[in-house]
């Protein structure tokens, strides 16, 4: 049995009266790719944003339960949000380059960590761009605006920026859905590469992608976790009817 990095216990979340996440219990294993599957609208994004408490931005959200991470409860009101957010890099559906240069984007994360001088920043920027498999493509134009990159490159830049705050977990919410297949594959391969050092939680509704890289799978439907387990077992011997239907393509 692997060590679990994050334990989600009895998580319930409401927007107004709408029950979005229903008694969710998940153990996210360390240094593996956990894939969260489910049809659109079932609460995957909400779950991800609960993990780093970005749900706090919605003043109509209420939640209960606990999310344990390194002995602290992420959902506790006194939790240091900066600390837990820097432990988790977030990749969203569309790339989100900040309005600055390529260098500036990665340095933005580093500066938030208190690293200031250009001479300290430069080697780290390179390091994280390499980790995101982008360095070779941008090393000669680090001062170009980030939006000049292709969408696929922008997403890898966002990955590099996320890695720059030195997280232990990467939260990726359908990170390849806006990308062309080749760029998507590059990101996928990067995840497989990165799981040696990071715990990865990946939301996707592309089944083939899930089959390619998942170690652990969570299947959600209308706010419930229907089934979860190691990828092998999940894909080959699903136990729930809903899962079988989903894997058979019933919801697509």
């Amino acid at each position, binding site marked *: 049995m692997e060590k679990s990095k994050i334990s989600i216990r009895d998580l319930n979340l409401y927007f107004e009266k709408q029950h979005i996440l229903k008694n969710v219990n998940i153990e996210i294993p360390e240094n593996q790719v956990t894939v969260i599957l489910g049809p659109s609208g079932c609460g995957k994004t909400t779950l991800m*944003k609960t993990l*780093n408490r*970005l749900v706090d*931005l919605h003043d109509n959200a209420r939640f209960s339960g606990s999310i344990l991470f390194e002995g602290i409860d992420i959902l506790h009101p006194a939790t240091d*949000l*900066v*600390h837990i*957010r*820097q432990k*988790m*890099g*977030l990749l*969203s*559906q*569309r790339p*989100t380059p*900040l*309005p*600055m240069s390529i260098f500036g984007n990665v340095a*933005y*994360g580093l500066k*938030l*960590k208190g690293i200031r001088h250009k001479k300290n920043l430069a080697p780290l920027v390179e390091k994280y761009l390499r980790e995101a498999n982008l360095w070779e493509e941008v090393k000669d134009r680090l001062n170009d*605006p980030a*939006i000049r990159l292709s969408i696929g490159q922008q997403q890898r830049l*966002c990955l590099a*920026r*996320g890695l720059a*705050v030195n997280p232990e977990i990467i939260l990726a919410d359908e990170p390849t859905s806006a990308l062309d297949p080749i760029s998507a594959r590059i990101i996928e391969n990067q995840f497989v590469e990165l799981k040696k050092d990071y715990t990865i939680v990946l939301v996707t509704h592309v089944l083939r992608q899930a089959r390619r890289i998942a170690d652990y799978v969570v299947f959600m439907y209308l706010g419930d976790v229907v089934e979860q387990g190691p990828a092998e077992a999940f894909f080959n011997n699903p136990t729930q009817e809903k899962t079988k239907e989903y894997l058979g393509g019933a919801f697509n």
Partner: protein
Amino acid sequence: MATTITYYKLRKIKDRIVSGWVKTMVGLVLLLPVVIAISLLSKSWLILGHSGLSELLFSSVWRPLAGEFGFWPFIISSVWVTFLGLIFTAPICLLSAIYLTQYGSKRLLGMMQPVIDILAGIPSVIYGVWGILLIVPAVGSFLAPLLGIETSGFSILAGGFVLAVMLIPFILNILIEIFRTVPRDLFEASLSLGASKWHTIKHVLLGKTFPGIISAFGLGLSRAFGETIAVLMVVGNVVAIPKTIFDPGYPLPALIANNYGEMLSIPMFDSALMFAALLLMAIVILFNIFSRWAIIHFEKKQ
């Protein structure tokens, strides 16, 4: 077969007429500033021939009866009033727009919107009256004595205040629109890196909208420079280079509005006023060109 062809031909003719019509209209609009500029220029020709451009612009001797027309006092007054107006209004607009779009509730923003529209719709003569009733005495009997300065209150400073108030709805509206275009994702990306909300506003919101902010203030600048009635009512209209902001001034638009139609018996006075109008127009166009250049320049850099 034949009918299709005639139908086709008919459509083509119609198309041509419509597009010709549209082009003419667009052409007219494009021509308008040129026409205005040319007619102003032709009217100013007389005074330009008489005094020469540099004397007109930089001489501060204004003695129409003696045929001496130096616009420097008016230019300086205009620059001062505009500059003050913008300085006062900039922080108010920026901070309110940030507060309304980032911190305040949706309801507050919804309530503010009609208020801003009403403020924008108030005729400038009313701002002028209000300035005489409130701002002028406030400057003359309160602010100036506090600093040990003597003034009637009709001053550059009063003009700047009134202008600032008039600019608020105009600039605030644009800024709110601009800030609302920044996608939520971008904010979340910054926060998810552990940045505080204020840090995110400073680096992401303001960074992303910087060209827009420049253009908002550029447009405000053009407007402020040309604002006539309200400023004219509080600024004192004394032809002299103001030494401090408590002195009265005489901005270009006020000069034109106060004098056109009067004193036209003085030789070349008419032409001098036309030159003032031409100057005003040229400066406003320069502001516009500058803010456009700034937008393009900064958008490239992002």
